[in-house]
């Protein structure tokens, strides 16, 4: 046997090859996980970007004085005026079925929009009014290129005849895309072209507010007790084990608790952010306690000794000296907990925040839904147009999530060099 360690034997070469393969396994695993993330977020963002645009159709409406009673402007049949305007534009349409599909080009919101306009400006009565109306979801999808325009007519949303009308509207410049303000300023709707996320957003904000107001104080007080006062004994061990286990209880079980106790025993209002926030508070409590304890532990003992040394009681020491120093850390933990609560859906389903709610909630006891639940509801809707709404709502949710985590990271970075 030679003593040389430079000439590589075949067996050694095999071992090095195995080493390379092994290292690549790790790389490939990470590549798979990261590319899944990119594909998922990327495709959803791409789908959701469509929801930022809204298609509008321009119509020339004749505000026939015979149809609108000047004394009761609000009571006129504006839907009929819209239909008339459509028929005037396409006089060749006579068959009942064709008329119906022609009316389907604009959203049913058009009548309301016209109503609002005329009520605001009664002077328009008797004149012709050129006005932009929200297109129906099907037309919107067509304009965004999401629908088939060739192939078997029976399997398409739009027949060639309908496509002809739409093309003629396009040619005269009566179809345009605008930024979809309504998506961010309205609540839910059965009509995809009118549905917005504001209602769900406000619901989520209320829910998180309740969640924070409950879980933060309770969480830090529990942490202070466990970290600063609790002696090592069986009871406190039990509390500790309990908290660790609670952190791993499936979220839906908290929903069941909320349903059985908050709704059925206490009779709190169903579907309300109050109950949603309470349930999420119980769920985030362990996270907050664990983070707050870590923050307290990071405060050097010398600070406690200094305070105790000048005659402060233990409670004074903790509340005047230790807790303020640990506060940023505790807050960071709380925000991270809130961010997780933000995405929770299952427990909210249990307590009825899954209802169809059009109005923007005005308080924590009014029925509301939450962003993730809204996503769930829209994802379940058959209309093609809800697909992009769902994706857009997901993007809103993720942006919200990122903002919260960013705040947490900034807080941590700002205060972490203190000790």
């Amino acid at each position, binding site marked *: 046997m030679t003593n040389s360690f430079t000439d590589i034997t075949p067996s050694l070469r095999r*071992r*090095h090859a195995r*080493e390379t393969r*092994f*290292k690549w*396994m*790790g*790389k*490939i*695993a*990470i590549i*798979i*996980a*990261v590319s*899944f993330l990119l594909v*998922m977020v990327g*495709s*959803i963002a791409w789908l959701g970007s469509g929801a930022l645009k809204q298609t509008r159709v321009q119509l020339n409406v004749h505000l026939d004085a015979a149809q609108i009673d000047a004394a009761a402007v609000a009571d006129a049949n504006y839907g009929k005026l819209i239909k008339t305007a459509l028929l005037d534009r396409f006089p060749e349409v006579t068959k009942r079925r064709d008329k119906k599909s022609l009316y389907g080009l604009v959203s049913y919101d058009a009548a309301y929009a016209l109503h609002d306009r005329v009520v605001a400006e009664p002077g328009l009565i008797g004149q012709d009014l050129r006005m932009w109306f929200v297109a129906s979801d099907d037309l919107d999808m067509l304009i965004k290129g999401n629908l088939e325009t060739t192939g078997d007519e029976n399997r398409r949303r739009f027949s060639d005849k309908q496509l002809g009308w739409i093309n003629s509207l396009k040619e005269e410049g009566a179809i345009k895309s605008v930024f979809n303000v309504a998506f961010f300023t309205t609540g839910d709707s059965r009509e995809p072209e009118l549905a917005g996320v504001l209602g769900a957003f406000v619901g989520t904000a209320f829910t998180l507010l309740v969640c924070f107001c409950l879980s933060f*104080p309770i*969480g830090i*007080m*529990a942490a202070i*007790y466990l970290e600063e*006062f609790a002696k090592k004994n069986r009871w406190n061990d039990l*509390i500790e*084990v*309990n908290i660790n*286990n*609670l952190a*791993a*209880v*499936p979220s*839906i*079980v908290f929903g*069941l*608790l909320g349903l*059985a*106790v908050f709704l*059925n025993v206490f009779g709190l209002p169903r579907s309300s952010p109050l109950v949603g926030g309470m349930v999420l508070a119980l769920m985030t*409590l*362990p996270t907050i306690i664990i983070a707050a304890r870590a923050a307290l532990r990071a405060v050097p003992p010398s600070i406690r000794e200094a305070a105790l040394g000048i005659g402060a009681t233990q*409670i004074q020491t903790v*509340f005047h000296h230790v807790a303020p120093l640990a506060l940023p850390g505790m807050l960071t933990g709380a925000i991270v907990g809130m961010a997780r609560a933000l*995405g929770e*859906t*299952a427990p909210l*389903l*249990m307590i*009825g925040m*899954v209802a169809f709610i059009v109005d923007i909630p005005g308080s924590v006891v009014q029925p509301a839904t939450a962003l*993730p639940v809204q*996503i*769930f509801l829209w*994802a379940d809707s058959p209309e093609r147009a809800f*697909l992009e709404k769902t*994706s857009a709502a*997901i993007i809103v*949710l*993720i942006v919200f*999530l990122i903002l919260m985590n960013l705040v947490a990271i900034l807080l941590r970075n700002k205060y972490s060099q203190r000790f």
Partner: protein
Amino acid sequence: MGNLPTAPFVSSNKTRRRLGEFVVYVLLITSALVAVAVTIGIVFSLAFEAYHFFQLISWQDFLFGTKWSPQTAIRSDQVGAEGSFGVLPLVVGTLLISAIAMAIATPLGLASAIYLAEYATPRARSIIKPMLEILAGIPTVVYGFFAALMIAPFIRMTGSSIGLEVASESALAAGIAMGIMIVPLISSLSDDVINSVPQSLRDASYGLGATQAETIRKVILPAALPGISGSLLLATSTAIGETMIVVMAAGMAANLSVNPLDAVTTVTVQIVSLLTGDQEFDSAKTLSAFALGIMLFCVTLVLNVIAQKIVKHFREQYD
């Protein structure tokens, strides 16, 4: 003459301060006890409703029944008016999806953890770790949406192109999404565990002329095994309790099947479907959700307790 002046450290308002501090102290303890109260609340409320359920349906029928169709009858004298509450199809469905998820997440999560802990440069680590944290932070409703929208059709297309029949909502689609969701959980826990294996063991192995892969496979992983198995148990418990992914991608059909291409349903999906929409509170149908809930709670609790015991033991060994 008479009395000595009071010593300066005998404060007269001592009792008042004592009282105030006592109140604060009680408040602190109460807060800590809230966590215990929540657990007790969960156990009692679930047990209470489940008790009513088991007065209507025998526990043998529940645990060993093979048919799940909890619809309540329109007329009370109808055949099968009570519905069937055999939980086996749900249990099998839950286990099937969890098994698929773990089969995907375990190799990916472990390999990622090994790479992060042993191979990655600090720079690579500082990029990859946040990526995985984002993956972990994405709400499960998003995974569910993606599974239903992209993964399921993809599997169905691939399946039919090779002549397999795939349900539109397959266990596989839900399992894949759930698997990816769990990867960061396994990788971050295992990363911690691998990092806590003492450097001296690595040195010993390198000192004998082992390659890095040999050191990892034959020294580090065996030493970290208890901690890693703890993290796998926690991940399994998460998979079993996961709700939104399965609600959106696995479906409602209570098939007793272990074929990943079939539609199956899970315990959590049924809880959601039983309790959303209109409910009469005392029907067996509604109450059965709580029986499912307590079962879910017990199973995940046992897994967690074991996992935490193992991990704690592991940490004590090397601290």
